[in-house]
C-alpha cells in the first residue's frame, strides 16, 4: 500500500474527498453516523463468513446465520448492505420490503443503497490503486432533513425515481439531454444525486462525454476504459 503519487488526477482525488464528506453528513432519512455505519458494514461484508456461505448457496435465503458485524445498525439493515456488497445480482424486492418493519421505507432504502455503493466504490478504487484503507471520518451531528422528493416516475424499477418534469430535474441532470434509468436510479433521494454524478464523472467519465467515443483527459483510451467496465460488469453478472 502507498500514498497517492503525482500521477493521480486531481479530480479523482477530489471526488474521493467529496464522497466521504457526503457520507459523514446528515442525509434525508439517515444520520451521518448511520451512513458511516453503513460504510463500516460494506467493509465487514468483504470477509463475512455468512456472506461467503450465501454466495455459494442455491438461494441466499437458505443461509440465515448472523453476519460478521462492524456497527450497531439493525440486523435487517446490515443484512441488506451485506447482500448488496457480496451478492448484488440476487437482490430482491422482498428484501427491500422487509426493511419497512425496521424503520426504512423505499426512500430510506435508497439512501441506504446510496451510502453502500458510494463507500464500496471508493474503497474498491483505493484497493485497486494500492492506496491504504481510509479511516472512517467523524460523523457530523444533526437530524436527517426528511425532505419530500417531489414529483416521481415509475420506470418499472423496484423504487420510484424523480420525474424529469420535477422542478429539480433540470438542475440535477443539467449535464445530460435525457437521463437514463441508471442515472435516475438513486433520485428518490434527490440530495444524493449530485454526489452520485460527481463520483461517476471522476471515476469513469462525465455524463456529457459518455455518448462520445473518446475519453478526454484520461490516460487510458475509451476502448481500454470500456474493456475494464465490461469486465467488472461481467464479474458482477450485471445485466444493465
Amino acid at each position: 500500500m502507498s500514498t497517492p503519487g503525482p500521477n493521480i488526477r486531481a479530480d479523482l482525488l477530489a471526488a474521493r474527498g467529496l464522497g466521504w464528506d457526503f457520507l459523514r453528513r446528515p442525509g434525508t432519512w439517515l444520520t451521518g453516523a448511520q451512513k458511516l455505519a453503513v460504510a463500516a458494514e460494506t467493509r465487514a461484508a468483504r470477509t463475512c463468513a455468512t456472506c461467503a456461505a450465501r454466495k455459494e448457496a442455491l438461494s441466499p435465503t437458505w443461509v440465515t446465520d448472523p453476519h460478521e458485524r462492524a456497527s450497531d445498525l439493525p440486523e435487517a439493515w446490515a443484512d441488506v448492505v451485506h447482500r448488496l456488497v457480496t451478492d448484488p445480482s440476487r437482490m430482491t424486492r422482498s428484501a427491500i420490503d422487509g426493511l419497512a418493519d425496521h424503520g426504512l421505507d423505499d426512500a430510506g432504502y435508497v439512501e441506504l443503497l446510496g451510502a453502500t455503493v458510494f463507500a464500496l466504490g471508493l474503497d474498491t478504487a483505493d484497493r485497486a490503486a494500492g492506496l491504504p484503507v481510509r479511516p472512517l471520518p467523524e460523523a457530523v451531528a444533526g437530524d436527517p432533513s426528511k425532505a419530500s422528493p417531489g414529483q416521481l416516475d415509475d420506470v418499472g424499477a423496484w423504487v420510484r425515481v424523480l420525474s424529469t418534469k420535477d422542478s429539480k430535474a433540470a438542475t440535477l441532470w443539467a449535464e445530460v439531454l435525457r437521463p437514463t434509468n441508471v442515472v435516475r436510479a438513486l433520485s428518490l433521494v434527490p440530495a444524493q444525486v449530485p454526489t452520485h454524478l460527481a463520483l461517476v464523472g471522476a471515476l469513469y467519465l462525465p455524463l456529457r462525454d459518455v455518448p462520445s467515443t473518446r475519453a478526454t483527459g484520461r490516460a487510458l483510451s475509451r476502448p481500454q476504459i470500456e474493456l475494464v467496465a465490461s469486465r467488472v460488469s461481467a464479474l458482477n453478472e450485471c445485466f444493465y
Partner: protein
Amino acid sequence: MLGASSPTSDSQTPDIAAATRGTGEGTGVPHGDALVRFVNATLTGTDDDLTAARAALVDTVGEAGMHDAAGVIGNFTLMNRVADGTGLPLDAPLELASRGLRDAIGVNAYSAAERTRVGGFFSRIAAWVLARLLPIVLRLRSRR
C-alpha cells in the same frame, strides 16, 4: 458500452465477447490482457495477485493509466449495484440498441435480465436498424 466505443479506430476494435470471457486476450484493445488481469485481481484475487497485476499494468499503461483503471473499477462496482439494488430494467432505447450484443455475450442468462421486457416483431426490426445506425452516429458525433 464496449460495443458503443468500438468505432474509435480500426486498430482498436474491441471484441466484447473476448472481454467477458475473462483473459483479455483477443479483445483487440492495447494492453487488454493486463487491464483484464487487473480487474480480475481487484475483484476476485488475493492481495498478492493484485500487487502483481498492478505492477504489470503500471509497466504497460503507466501509473496514471493504472489510476484511471482503478477508478473505472470503483465506478462500475458502484453502478452495477445501483442497477441491481433498484431492480432497474434497461431503458427501451438501450434495450433495442444492445439486443444483439446481449445475445452475443450471454448476459440474457443473468437472473436480472428478467426485469427487462423484450418486445416483439417490430421491436426486433427496430433493434436491427438501430444496431447498424448507432456506430455511425457515434462516429460522426465524435468527429465534431
